């Protein structure tokens, strides 16, 4: 099963170390393979370091793509996390 969704990075500094770490942690709870695509480059969504290398600045659009039994809930939760500015109020 494959599920995907486009999201926009809203927090002030973009997908920097803390958001990337949090995103990878949440992604790591799912069994599905999770890929994040930006401008044609895809990285492992469970890797905080690889997420950093996307250099996703505020306003950039990411595609979250999950493949596996829990792909739907994974994309839901990860998209919410991005929209919720990763739960950080100070970024």
């Amino acid at each position, binding site marked *: 099963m494959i599920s995907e969704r486009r999201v926009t990075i809203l927090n002030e500094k973009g997908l920097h170390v*803390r958001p990337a*770490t949090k995103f990878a942690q949440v992604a790591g709870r799912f069994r599905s393979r999770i890929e994040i695509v930006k401008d044609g480059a895809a990285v492992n969504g*469970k*890797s905080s*370091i690889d997420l950093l*290398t996307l250099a996703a*600045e505020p306003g950039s659009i990411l595609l979250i793509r999950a493949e596996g039994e829990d792909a739907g809930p994974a994309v839901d939760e990860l998209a919410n996390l991005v929209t919720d500015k990763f739960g950080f109020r100070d970024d």
Partner: protein
Amino acid sequence: MEIIRKGIPVSAGFAIGEALVLDTEEFRIPQRTVAAEIVEAEVVRIERALDAAKKEFEGHLAKLAKKASGLGQILQAHVGLLTDPQLKDDIVGAIRKNHFTAEYATSRHLKKKIKVLQDTGSPYFQSLTRDLSEIEKTLIRHLLGAKREDVSRLAKKVVIVAHDLTPAQTLALDRDKVLGMVTEVGGRTSHTAIVAASFGIPAVVGVENVTTAVSGGDAIILDGASGTVIVNPGEATLKRYQAMERNFVLHGRRLGKELRDLPAETRDGHRVEIFANIELPGEVAAAVEHGAEGIGLYRTEFLYLQSGFHPTEAMHLEAYRQALGQLGGRKLVIRTLDLGADKMPVDGLPREENPFLGTRAIRLCLERPELFRTQMRAILKVSSMGNVHAMIPMVSSVHEIRQVRELIDEVRHELVREGESVPGRVSMGIMVEVPSAAIVADLMADYVDFFSIGTNDLIAYSIAVDRLNEKVASLYQPSHPAILRLLRHVIEVGEKRGKPVSVCGEMSSDPRYTMLLLGMGLKCFSVVPPAIPEIKKIVRSLTIEYAREVAAKCFEFSDARKTDEFLLLETRKILPDVF
């Protein structure tokens, strides 16, 4: 397999030995690969290091009172990065696939990620490379454990191979254990080059990607005269170089012994002086041993670099006394602070777009007189103990030199009030290294006791060439007609006004230019100690008439390359073993 690389030769001599590869953090990168049977042991090592590094950051975090503070967030982020499952998978994968050591696999992987971030073009994301570097450093530290090596205390003799060496690193190197130095960056007048030449350590700089071609422990040969670096030499190559090394050492010793106590005098009795350039007080003995008639350039930057940029008056005094004590009445020329605001953090000075044209040397001293006063107090104090002269770098106008004179007078009065015995007038000269100073040398002459031409910067500023930028390094030509004219002008002014002129730049240490400088009327050479015997040999082989003819001929060439070819042929007649 034998790998041959070429670089820029900066300090002659041969080094044959084992390579020690340093990364920028002064860590030793050990062997890059291991035997197949211990690959799994390497995997265990990286797993343990990841764990230990994570525990280390968590330990710091536990001690913090406020977890939400800036530092707390950084530590949490580092823990997060270390627990990245992909990080472990990638490193372990590289170890299993390529038989890399855990250290090398880790460093290579994180450096790749750092490169990606650097290439993003986003200043904010580029700044995050700090976090990845921190992770890399921490992991390497845990992997190496007790194996970490301090470059100031090396266990055996090695050839240092590094991307770059900082001034602090080169000064800290254990000189008895360093056979030679190879760096990827740098030019003929880079710091590594200057230190290597003055220590008499063979060195080659500007060897592209050499740190990736060499692994720690590899056999390496370095020829500091031709700029050749050979990694893993075959037996025939090794034998050939060993023979060449023996000849070189014998030739140097013979020349040094033969000439040490003889004057630097031409065959027809024209006497010149040869002084030494030194970096550390400990070099005085070697300089005298090579036949130096004194120290023509005592660089004092080491005091700043070793003391966190704020040496006390007592530290200055100790360094100067130490040098003077070994000179037995010979001359000591102390150059005042010659660092820029880019090298030396100074409160309240903004970052400069163009440090080379910015607040450097005397400009920094006039901006922050307290820096200058501390050093000048020590120089004035030692000037009553011996033949001491102060030399001011980077002077560009008469106005500056008058300001310096005033400051020195103030310091002198202050010392007299304190009851110190200081001479009525201290000998003070300037470095001529800014073209404006060379052009108005006649106006400067009223205010100074001597001139010392710093050709390295004079050439760079006159030809507008960054000597460290390999793309334009070939434009850096000591024998450019413009440089020769500036030199001639300063030498003539000095002669007319009775102010001694010396040349203390690299040009002076290069035997190919000895005849030319001699023929132009230069009476004082200040050179790296190992060059003294060769320079003296050339002086003693000529008549002053012949040198003048050579110089006159050089002034006819419009192209520096022609001048260099001509001088090489002339020098070869006298030193066939070297050129």
